[in-house]
């Protein structure tokens, strides 16, 4: 039974792989624009073996982690305090509302101009892009917390910071983690598109560099790596999220 479930689950992916292998070999698509999967996998092996993948991958992961981490570090407290303080809300809310719909990728040329080709421009872009989703989810989550929970904490003698970070934020965790998860997905988009345009390393740079040079098989290999990274990151996050929300029963 287990084996059967397993087969059912992975059959779409297997079919896709098969189609990828056969389509160029049967001449349905040009082998130039879509090299067969086996060729791509051979390039992947080479990229991994010569260390390119690791170097660029680590560079990308560092940017992603730093940008998203900063967004969480700033967004969670700010959103939570906004939800509980009228003054902070009055200052931050109009700013957040104005910036929320703006496509953050429009900032790429500006950040390139200000921060150059190094890590700072990418980290800043991811930070700015992820900040609002994280902040909004913290804000909405804390706003939705039953006031009686907050009263409870106060009646046990807790001060305002203790109430916010000891009660409101944990109570808002389901909504907050959902927000962080969508920020994680967004951070991959921002990472790769910014590395296309303003970087000398990183997986996005690797993809565009290989593509520009006409090395399509390794280019597809790098694309596969990015897709797998995004998928794995999301799965890992889900595992952590389930752990943290085990109390929901």
């Amino acid at each position, binding site marked *: 039974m287990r084996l059967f479930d397993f087969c059912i689950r992975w059959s779409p992916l297997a079919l896709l792989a098969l189609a990828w292998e056969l389509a160029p070999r049967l001449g349905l698509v040009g082998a130039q624009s879509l090299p067969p999967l086996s060729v791509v996998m051979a390039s992947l092996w080479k990229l991994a073996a010569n260390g390119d993948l690791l170097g660029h991958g680590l560079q990308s992961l560092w940017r992603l982690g730093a940008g998203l981490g900063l967004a969480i570090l700033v967004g969670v407290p700010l959103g939570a305090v906004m939800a509980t303080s009228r003054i902070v809300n009055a200052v931050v809310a109009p700013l957040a509302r104005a910036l929320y719909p703006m496509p953050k990728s429009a900032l790429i040329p500006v950040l390139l101009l200000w921060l150059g080709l190094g890590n700072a421009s990418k980290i800043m872009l991811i930070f700015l892009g992820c900040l609002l989703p994280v902040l909004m989810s913290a804000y909405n989550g804390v706003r939705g917390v*039953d006031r009686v929970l907050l009263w409870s904490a106060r009646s046990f003698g807790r001060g305002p910071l203790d109430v916010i970070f000891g009660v409101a934020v944990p*109570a808002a965790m389901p909504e907050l983690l959902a927000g962080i998860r969508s920020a994680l997905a967004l951070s991959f988009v921002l990472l790769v598109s910014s590395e296309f345009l303003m970087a000398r390393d990183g997986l996005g740079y690797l993809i565009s560099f290989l593509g520009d040079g006409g090395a399509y098989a390794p280019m597809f290999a790098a694309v596969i790596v990015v897709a797998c990274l995004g998928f794995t990151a999301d799965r890992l996050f889900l595992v952590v999220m389930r752990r943290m929300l085990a109390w929901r029963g």
Partner: protein
Amino acid sequence: MSQIVFDRVRHGYRAAGRPEMLALSDISLSVEPGEFVSLLGPSGCGKSTLLYLLGGFVAIQSGRILMEGRKVTGPGPDRGVVFQNFALFPWKTVRQNIAYGLERQKLPARERDEIVQSFIDMVHLRGFEDSFPSQLSGGMRQRVAIARTLAVKPRVLLMDEPFGALDAQTREIMHEELLGIMQRTRMTTIFVTHDVREAVYLSDRVAVMSSRPGRIKEVLTIDLPERTGPSVMKSARANDIVEYLWSQVKIDAAHAVSAVQ
């Protein structure tokens, strides 16, 4: 000296674009140390509001509330509250919930653990120490909430329809447990309910409230013999009191319904 004094308390709720809704009007009531007083009244008559004002969660608009001679200005651990929907922290285990109030007291960890365990035992939750509230029945959650509040040894206990959501059987068990705790601690208690029998069985006095705006229309002393068990409720005296209070509440419930229509 009375431990709790409500002195001409009035409270209205303001919703945007609507005239103020008067929830409480001219409430005066004094509660003596060790007394068990029930607030009895139909849904929406302002029982919770009155408790929130005494708890210090909602700012008083006019009149005064005194707790041991001092004006109530905010929440404090001297007034332990058990809320209508328990208000347990869902991400904390039973043990962590009960320990929550003690974390602020500078106690050695050993001593704190012992206190927590003694309260877990008191509410018969041994074996459920590491369960989350979502894994407990309604009655068990209520017992956690009571233990969490009692663990910090408040001066007075405020309970808002604590057994309203429980089935009759569990409710009866909880009544016995509560009376047992009260006998041991002699804690002053204000108990909100709309269940007449419950109020009569548990209370020294019952304050009957009328709705819209909520006021106290009568305070009745319950002079039943020593509560030795649920059987006191079978006496003719108890029945008379229940009948009488029921008729008082019914008038208002009918008024409240017709006022809405």
